[in-house]
């Protein structure tokens, strides 16, 4: 509750500062690749933030969240393909279609619990996946290229990488602000009550279904918008965006960063994409002294490290990165002689 300065808040502030100043660094060094990577991180962080709203705060184990990335992305790309390039149309449309999909999926699946809920959300995402593969006009399995980025009547030029990055970052910050307000509101308290003990919530008089459904739709909308951003970022959409392993990735980001914490999903997205990007090089570097010839090849097998790492995090570090920072905060200030042991 208290907003005093802790190690964790320091790290969060530093992270936000890095995100804001990144384009300046890129301008100085000319490292365009870094900007592309961070744009992707920011967009997926927004998707993870939306999943965290229902998974982390609401306890709803949705295993089909990547469907909204695809739905938002496809809405934008299809409109573009059909000649409607205005972002003022594309983005609200992405939001509307995602909301509708979430409303239907939520209304049907929130009747079930536990594993049944996990599986039915997964099934609906698979439906969206196969639907996209079946749309012959829009490329089917091969996906659909987005010929030009969303147009905002000359106000914003999304083809400019720095502008686009800041648009994404602004939307991420807006999502974080929204989630922050919501989770502290009456609505958010209900959501957390449902996560903690839904039977009791009903016993004291809350009709929990409608609150869960509302949260489900809000999360879908947020993720749908990040889908429209992804489509703009890669200039391309394909059914693969919605495959169930992508939904798994989003879950991993949320848990890796720290479920039910505001900034956890941002840390999670950052960590997962960094691992994806740099683990190969790290493995190569570690193997090189022993086997110089095989070092480059060894780096290709980075997931062999990531998989067990994930298992270890699940088993031993449920709080994720945010939990780790919290632990460090309690040990670091004022007790420097103890180190972080």
């Amino acid at each position, binding site marked *: 509750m208290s907003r005093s300065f802790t190690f964790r808040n320091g790290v969060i502030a530093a992270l936000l500062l890095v995100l804001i100043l990144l384009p300046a660094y890129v301008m100085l060094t000319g490292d365009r690749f870094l900007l592309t990577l961070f744009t992707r991180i920011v967009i997926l962080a927004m998707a993870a933030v939306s999943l965290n709203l229902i998974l982390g705060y609401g306890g709803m184990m949705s295993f089909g969240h990547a469907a909204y990335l695809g739905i938002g992305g496809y809405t934008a790309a299809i409109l573009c393909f059909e000649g409607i390039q205005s972002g003022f149309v594309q983005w609200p449309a992405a939001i509307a279609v995602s909301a509708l999909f979430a409303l239907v999926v939520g209304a049907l699946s929130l009747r079930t619990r536990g594993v049944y809920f996990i599986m*039915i959300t997964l099934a609906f995402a698979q439906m969206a996946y196969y639907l996209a593969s079946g749309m012959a006009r829009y490329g089917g399995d091969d996906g659909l290229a987005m010929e030009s980025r969303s147009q905002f009547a000359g106000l914003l030029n999304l083809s400019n990488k720095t502008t686009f990055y800041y648009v994404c970052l602004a939307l991420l910050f807006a999502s974080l602000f929204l989630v922050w307000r919501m989770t502290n509101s009456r609505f958010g308290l209900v959501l957390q009550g449902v996560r903690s003990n839904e039977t009791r919530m009903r016993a004291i008089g809350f009709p929990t279904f409608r609150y869960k459904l509302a949260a489900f739709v809000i999360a879908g909308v947020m993720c749908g918008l990040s889908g429209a951003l992804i489509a703009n970022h890669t200039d391309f959409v394909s059914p693969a965006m919605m495959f169930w392993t992508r939904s798994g990735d989003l879950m991993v980001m949320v848990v890796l960063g720290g479920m039910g914490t505001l900034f956890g999903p941002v840390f999670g997205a950052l960590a997962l994409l960094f691992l994806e990007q740099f683990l190969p090089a790290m493995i190569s570097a570690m193997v090189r002294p022993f086997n110089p010839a095989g070092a480059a090849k060894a780096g290709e097998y980075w997931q*062999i490290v990531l998989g067990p790492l994930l298992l270890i995090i*699940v088993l031993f570090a449920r709080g994720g990165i945010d939990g780790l920072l919290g632990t460090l905060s309690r040990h670091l200030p004022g007790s420097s002689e103890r180190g972080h042991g």
Partner: protein
Amino acid sequence: MTLFIEQCLNGLQFGLLLFLLAAGLTLVFGIMDLVNLAHGSLYMLGAYFAATFTAVTGSFLLGAGLAIAATLLVGMLVEVVAMRRLYGRDHLDHVLGTFGLILFFDELVRLVWGPEGRSLPVPSWLNQSIQILPGIQYSAYRLAIIVVTLAVAAFLYVLVMRTRLGMLIRAGATNREMVGALGVNIKLLYTLVFGLGAALAGLAGLMQAPILTVQIGMGENILILAFVITVIGGIGSIRGAFVAALLVGFIDTLGRAFFPGFLADLLGRQAASTAAPALSSMLIYILMAVILVAKPQGLFPASSR
């Protein structure tokens, strides 16, 4: 008509194969309350093992036997090293932990067998057609799959319903402490059950291998189908898994075979050719959604939960 009968047999064959996968999943879920996404990886391993062992020994049967034994061992190893630590935790932990295992196994297979797929040829003695009805020929290999899977289903039925091990399995599903108190080594029981599930997955993988190709990620699509089956059937119910597997096998196969024609009449041939396979894949998920909305616990809810 001939085509229809052939497709029905294909549906039966695919459904029975899916049952092998779903049976392992539902056993593990019913008894250990564990959601195992890595089940598809064991299916994949079964296929890779069979491809290698068959190539080495020169005999399909010997290769298959060795592959089943190897998947059984891998399954038991995975249980001891990883799964055991996940019992009693919530399902999100299971999903994430076993998701990690999928990444690990996919990469391990790439490391050991390389990125290219393998092929496992149909053994020559099964590579023929048999006349099953006057005027109707059917692949001997697919027929063999039907026979083997039916035998395995019967074996499972006897094992679970008629033996001491089965009694322990059923008791363990409803009352863990009781079984423990009776002096049964529950840890060993769980390891065996998980190994059995793995061996069934391996068997499914190796039998499917000659029909499809052996490749990385082959388990990920079919895993979801197997999950759909366990959910439709009612998690923990072997009988439910059997019924649901046949249902899904038929719908998937017949959908793929006849839906395109139906769609071509509706949309025109060009559009139908891409849309049909995708839409017939959707049929199963629509079926599942409908069933779960009507019966949120599946068709045969296990009585204990």
